[in-house]
């Protein structure tokens, strides 16, 4: 732009009367990943303030937790975050096992790790496809859903379900591996090995994609800390917090893998962390498949599960961050308080601060890179 034209533009804006515009994004907007309403105050192309409004899918999960017995709740926990069902089940079972001091057989722990890491891969695949689509690249979605189908077939062979599994139990898992599962899973891993490179070629090296992601929505470490952001979003801001390594639960100490971090803290960094994490999850699954020990898949748990009076807080590293369950027992068959700490709640809470002053077109890119699931926030 020549200086002459730009100075005329400046003159015109100076004399023009401008006013702020309120824009409702959602609750039925394709890029809100569920029913989320975003109230944006806009000054031209700039966001002055962003106020998320949610609760459209509130089902009262915590209240229901007080009316169902411990084993009954497991099927419901699948529906907290339907793209990370195994992590919800696992977190709930861990808390209940802590309360009742139940030991889990090693074989069951291995099975839990295998299905959960497969789940992490599928969740990141959906996110990758949706992220590309948010920015106008439709092709990656068709690729990632193809791969996801293969994993869902594995889940279906394992427990008959593709989305909401009801697979884990307090004290173990409900079913052993079906015949041929290990071979099929290994075949998938062999196929999947080269896929992150394909995604790289489709998206990561695309100059338009990089231009829209780099230095967009930069989250400094202290902002992430103040809002208790966890998971890939935090690791994209340079903090190596991954419960699987920082405070290993279950059999995670058995496996060798890297915690991926990026120092930049922008949308591109969060994107790179997740793509790299898919490779690490594949490495964990390969090690676990090779090392499954023989033995029981369930420990002896009384038919009526009555943990002693007390409370337990258990947390797992889900694909979106730290998923915690806080259960309080009064000695009966039902908990008196069932609190669910969801990672997306904190990851969304940072948004109003993150969106201040950005271009309205970047809102979609930032929202996509944060990877939150609205039904999980609403519970």
């Amino acid at each position, binding site marked *: 732009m020549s200086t002459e034209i730009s100075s005329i533009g400046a003159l015109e804006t100076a004399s023009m009367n401008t006013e702020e515009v309120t824009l409702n994004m959602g609750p039925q907007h394709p890029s809100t990943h569920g029913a989320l309403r975003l109230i944006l105050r806009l000054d031209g192309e700039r966001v002055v303030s962003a106020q998320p409004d949610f*609760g459209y899918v509130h089902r009262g999960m915590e209240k229901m937790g007080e009316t169902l017995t411990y084993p009954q709740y497991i099927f419901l926990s699948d529906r907290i975050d339907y793209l990370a069902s195994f992590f919800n089940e696992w977190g709930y079972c861990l808390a209940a096992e802590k309360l009742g001091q139940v030991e889990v057989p090693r074989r069951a722990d291995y099975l839990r790790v295998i299905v959960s890491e497969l789940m992490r891969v599928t969740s990141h695949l959906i996110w990758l496809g949706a992220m590309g689509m948010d920015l106008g690249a439709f092709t990656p979605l068709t690729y990632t859903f193809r791969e996801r189908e293969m994993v869902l077939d594995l889940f279906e062979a394992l427990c008959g379900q593709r989305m909401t599994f009801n697979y884990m139990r307090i004290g173990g898992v409900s079913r052993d591996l079906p015949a041929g599962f290990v071979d099929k899973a290994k075949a998938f891993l062999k196929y999947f090995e080269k896929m992150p490179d394909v995604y790289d070629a489709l998206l990561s090296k695309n100059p338009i994609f990089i231009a829209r992601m780099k230095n967009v929505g930069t989250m400094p470490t202290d902002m992430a800390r103040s*809002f*208790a952001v966890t998971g890939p979003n935090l690791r994209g801001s340079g903090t190596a917090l991954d419960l699987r390594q920082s405070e290993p639960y279950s059999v995670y100490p058995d496996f060798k893998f890297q915690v991926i971090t990026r120092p930049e803290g922008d949308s591109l960094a969060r994107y790179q962390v997740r793509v790299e994490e898919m490779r690490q999850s594949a490495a964990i699954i390969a090690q676990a498949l090779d090392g499954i020990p023989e033995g029981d898949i369930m420990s002896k748990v009384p038919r009526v599960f009555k943990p002693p009076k007390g409370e337990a807080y258990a947390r797992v590293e889900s694909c979106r961050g*730290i998923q*915690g369950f806080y259960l309080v027992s009064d000695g009966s068959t039902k908990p008196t308080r069932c609190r669910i700490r969801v990672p997306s709640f904190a990851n969304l*809470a940072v948004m109003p601060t993150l969106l201040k002053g950005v271009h309205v077109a970047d809102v979609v890119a930032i929202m996509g890179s944060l990877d939150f699931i609205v039904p999980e926030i609403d519970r």
Partner: protein
Amino acid sequence: MSTVSLESLRQAFPQAAVEEAGGFGPAVILTSVQELPAAVQRLQALKSQALDVCEDYTALEEGDNYILVLHLVASADVTARVTLKAPVAKATAEAPSLTPWYGIANWYEREVFDMYGIRFVGHPDLRRILLPEDWVGHPLRKDYSDDKLLKRPGA
């Protein structure tokens, strides 16, 4: 791997009850609700390990009180964590807001207000977060009832 030692917590909180916890975290600190902001400040400035992340903030009901429950962790070391509890009398149902110390406290307090009806004094924007604005009552209270609630047979 370092954790917060019980001794260091007892030194920092001579007045409050510091108990060793069984199921989670190394310790539970019981404080009065008026001293909650001071307790949080002291934990954030703890010499051995600053507990500067509010991982979870919720409440539960016990007898005549609601009890605020905070799960605090250190950003430098996640194994260092503490549970902070403060009882709030049901009659007053009022607590000081922790929004100056944690960004996330804004939304967590809105959720506790929504579900338990505890009013946080000093909160910049205290309104319901999950339920509709015209909702009557606070559902996680044990005495909550609603015409639409289904009675279980035999219950």
